[in-house]
């Protein structure tokens, strides 16, 4: 029995939702970052799965986009973590509930 695209998409949706859960419910900024990274990984999984289950293309678009996406995610993680450190220095906390200077 070979798996269908559906299976991968559902795995990806589950991963995405878990990432969302982490991003929404934790207070620590790093958790939120982890959650976002998980959501990005889920998106990448989608790219790859769709690429794999569709007719061949030249160049392999899904793969390419996944690579770019990983690169961007890395950049995002770097900046995000740097922000966490900077914020921590400034406020002595990484609890996002306390970070509401943008409150309207």
């Amino acid at each position: 029995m070979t798996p269908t695209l559906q299976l991968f998409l559902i795995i990806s949706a589950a991963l995405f939702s878990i990432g969302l859960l982490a991003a929404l419910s934790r207070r620590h900024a790093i958790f939120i970052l982890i959650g976002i990274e998980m959501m990005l990984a889920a998106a990448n999984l989608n790219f790859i799965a769709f690429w794999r289950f569709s007719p061949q293309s030249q160049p392999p678009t899904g793969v390419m986009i996944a690579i770019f996406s990983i690169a961007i995610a890395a950049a995002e993680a770097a900046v995000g973590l740097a922000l966490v450190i900077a914020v921590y220095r400034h406020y002595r906390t990484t609890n996002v509930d306390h970070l509401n200077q943008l409150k309207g």
Partner: protein
Amino acid sequence: MSSAAVVIIAILTLAAALAAATLQKLMHATLSFAVALVGVAALFFLLGAEFVGLVLVFVYIGAVAVLIVFTILLTRRDVGKDRAANWGGAFLAVAVFGGLTWAILKTQSVAVVAPHIRLVTVKRIGEALMTSYVWPLQCVGLLLTAALIGALVLVMEEKP
């Protein structure tokens, strides 16, 4: 590629991800996150995207996870216990998952099996990067540089 392998890896991945999302200790969560990423990489392998899987392992587990650990260490004083989850977030996450699953199951066109394809060699990826994707590549390079500099600026100690 067999369903059994996929399902086993998926269960492992998702369990690790769930642990990452709910464990109270930040350090444990980070390790679980790394495990989950390994699982995703394994899925990539199964799907025949070995290169991407490797990149994922290198970039995430080699760089991002380590970075996270460093950050945890740097902001150690604040790393206490965090709450596990709240109901609002959980509700939303479940709702989104339900909605997505419903959409996936309802869509007929995704219930297909994988066609037979040629392997994607690193060479082909390299060629594509240098031809069709040369502009995006440059942009991402620029972005990474900017992120690098930006991160440095952010974390540099302010001179009094």
